[in-house]
């Protein structure tokens, strides 16, 4: 039965029922099937001057791959997709499309934009299910590049360089490759074995070697990589580092976690599964502080572990930095939002455990440096929310291991590695950087975009 397409609306995508999925870690969105993908692809206007591509940090030829889906040529669609993106099955799931490709889509002016993210996911999933891997080039450059960190930025840069013919080795500090894709983003949004592991295998199939349990900046410095191990260039993509806290009373209480810790326990260490040893606090009432994607991930993880969850965010719904889909899903699953509210103190019982959080109501004033209206406390509006766990999701500062042990590597006031936006070049010749370690905490796709630009930058540097 053919699907009737309303040109003003996206073809709906199947999702797990909110009540059901609130109790499991299986993927929430089930993705388009073939018929749905073909139907949605007919909504693309095939613009001559596609605005969507301008909105894509890795410049995927979006009308190109959607045109192939429309023609029934899924292999052709994947070829176009994989030429630009190393991790398409990941991007289709976690990119903030509404702010990028779909935000620019002409369809979106009068109706809903084309569901580019879901079509990307369809194509990448189709290729994986059919055992199709990206094309490997045979030419060899005879030069070695080291990549520090096997997260989205490092994997992208490594994949691109390998395709150009470089010998690439990725050094990963954790026991598993993937960076935030394995320790940060939860299983229900991004399946680890089915999707992430397979995309990393694709990068390895291009000839990239990944060494885990390897701490650059401690076991080996950047200088040793270049001077002793014979690497001609290094790309630093060491990612986000230490979590920020609010410096309010009670933050050292038992039951206060950073979102990084909470999610690492759940995702990387698989604490939600009985067959893994790492424990996690299954609170009865959890308060998550913050409004970004990480806050939504932490909130929805706590919910799945059996807790009631309230998200406390100091601005209004409009300013929530999380992807629209995540906020929508969180609400559907029963997570409460205390907006225009900010913590002032974490309350602890006589044993040192969290027993609540004291918050204050806020109102929005004049726009601040970020362009968003500044939240201002409303005097006398404090109240308490009862809870036994608090998860702080306020952002991170860059990982300090490499800047601290690499001479001549300039960093900014915020301790980010200073890197050229177009090439990734740092103050040290041959040393490039990108992703969260250079920009501060951002998204998977921006980190991938930086990896892609740095691969070009490194190629130009080594071709001189």
């Amino acid at each position, binding site marked *: 039965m053919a699907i009737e397409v309303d040109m003003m609306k996206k073809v709906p995508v199947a999702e797990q029922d909110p009540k059901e999925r609130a109790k499991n870690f299986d993927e929430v969105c089930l993705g388009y099937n073939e018929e749905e993908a073909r139907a949605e692809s007919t909504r693309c206007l095939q613009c001559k001057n596609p605005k969507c591509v301008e909105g894509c940090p890795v410049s995927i030829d979006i009308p190109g791959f959607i045109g192939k889906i429309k023609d029934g040529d899924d292999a052709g669609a994947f070829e176009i997709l994989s030429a630009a993106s190393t991790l398409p099955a990941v991007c289709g799931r976690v990119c903030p499309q509404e702010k990028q490709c779909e935000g620019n889509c002409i369809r979106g002016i009068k109706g809903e934009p084309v569901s580019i993210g879901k079509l990307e996911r369809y194509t990448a999933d189709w290729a994986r299910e059919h055992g199709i891997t990206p094309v490997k080039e045979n030419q060899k450059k005879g030069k070695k590049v080291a990549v520090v960190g096997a997260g989205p930025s490092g994997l992208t840069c490594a994949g691109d360089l390998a395709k150009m013919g470089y010998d690439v080795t990725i050094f990963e500090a954790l026991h598993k490759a993937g960076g935030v894709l394995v320790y940060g983003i939860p299983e229900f949004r991004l399946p680890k074995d089915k999707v992430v592991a397979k995309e990393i295998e694709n990068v390895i199939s291009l000839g990239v070697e990944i060494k885990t349990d390897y*701490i650059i900046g401690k076991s080996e410095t950047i200088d040793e990589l270049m001077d002793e191990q014979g690497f001609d260039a290094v790309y630093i993509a060491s990612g986000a580092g*230490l979590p920020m806290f609010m410096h309010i009373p009670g933050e*050292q209480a*038992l039951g206060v976690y*950073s979102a990084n*810790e909470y999610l690492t326990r759940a995702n990387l*260490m698989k604490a939600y599964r009985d067959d893994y*040893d*790492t424990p996690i606090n299954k609170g009865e009432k959890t308060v998550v502080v913050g409004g970004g994607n990480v806050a939504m991930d932490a909130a929805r993880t706590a919910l799945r572990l059996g807790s009631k969850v309230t998200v406390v965010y100091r601005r209004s719904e409009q300013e929530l930095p999380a992807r629209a889909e995540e906020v929508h899903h969180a609400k559907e699953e029963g997570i409460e939002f205390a907006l225009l509210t900010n913590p002032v103190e974490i309350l602890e019982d006589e044993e040192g455990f969290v027993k609540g959080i004291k918050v204050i109501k806020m109102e929005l004033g004049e726009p601040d440096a970020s362009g968003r209206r500044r939240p201002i406390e409303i005097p006398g509006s404090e109240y308490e929310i009862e809870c036994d766990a608090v998860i702080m999701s306020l952002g991170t500062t860059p990982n300090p291991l490499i800047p601290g042990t690499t001479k001549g590597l300039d960093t900014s006031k915020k301790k980010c590695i200073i890197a050229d936006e177009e090439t990734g070049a740092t103050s040290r010749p041959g040393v490039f950087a990108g992703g969260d370690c250079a920009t501060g905490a951002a998204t998977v796709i921006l980190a991938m975009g930086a990896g892609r630009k740095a691969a070009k930058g490194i190629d130009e540097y080594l071709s001189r």
Partner: protein
Amino acid sequence: MFKILEARELAEKTYLMVVEAPNVAHACEPGQFLIVRADEESERIALTICDYDRDKETVTIVFQTIGESSYKIAEKKAGDSFADVVGPLGNAAEYVNEPIEEVRKRHYLLVGGGLGTAPVYPQAKWLKEHGVDVDVIIGTKSHDTLIMEKEMIDAVGEEHVFVTTDDGSYARHGMVTAVIEELVKDMGRHYDMCVSIGPMIMMKFCVKLTKELGIPTTVSMNPIMVDGTGMCGACRLIVGDEVKFACVDGPEFDGYKVDFDSAMKRMKLYKTEEGRRLLEYQEGKTHKGGCGNC
């Protein structure tokens, strides 16, 4: 995989293992630590490096069995392997990167309490090998729990090692603080720097005394960690009114500035029977046998 070359029990519930770990062995210095994951399903456990051999590419770890994950480590035998050994992590002891002539001008007092004796050993050895004067105090519950006395004597000489037991079953009778007082007040020894490693409560009282005696003191903090690489923030401490992270800012800190009470509160409830029962009551059976390291 990281092969175990030697495994033996030093005292009840205390084990020593020599492990092949080239990436750690070729770069580690006294003061640093590593992370072990016994198997695929195991926790990441932070352990201090007790010794290392750069030529053989091995490191020596000494640990106690507290919870399930440390039991899993202890169950391994020579010839078995760990899934992961990662390091070196944290910063080397301050003197390692100071001009050695400056370090040689100082008299060092090293204090190891219980399992803390193990991480004191590479410090004692390093200082002695670099021609620095060093005295070592080893404090332990009783003769049965005493570890590494012989190694310490071999490293710094018998006249520089002072053992004390809480129950008086061997050598001196009493706390390490009593020995510090004896050395400084009765024997007239002078120290310019103290390094104290052991249970939080011992370090707290050690610092209280050395502060009175005017001896600057470094302590090594061993809070709960997950990744150990500067990412998760579980190991946060209050040091001089600032939030510090033991894994990247430490593990050694100025003992005068550490807020031991808040650090102990975070440790206590996870490390004692009472605390674990409380946790089970409050958090349900999430600790899978009382991990002791969450």
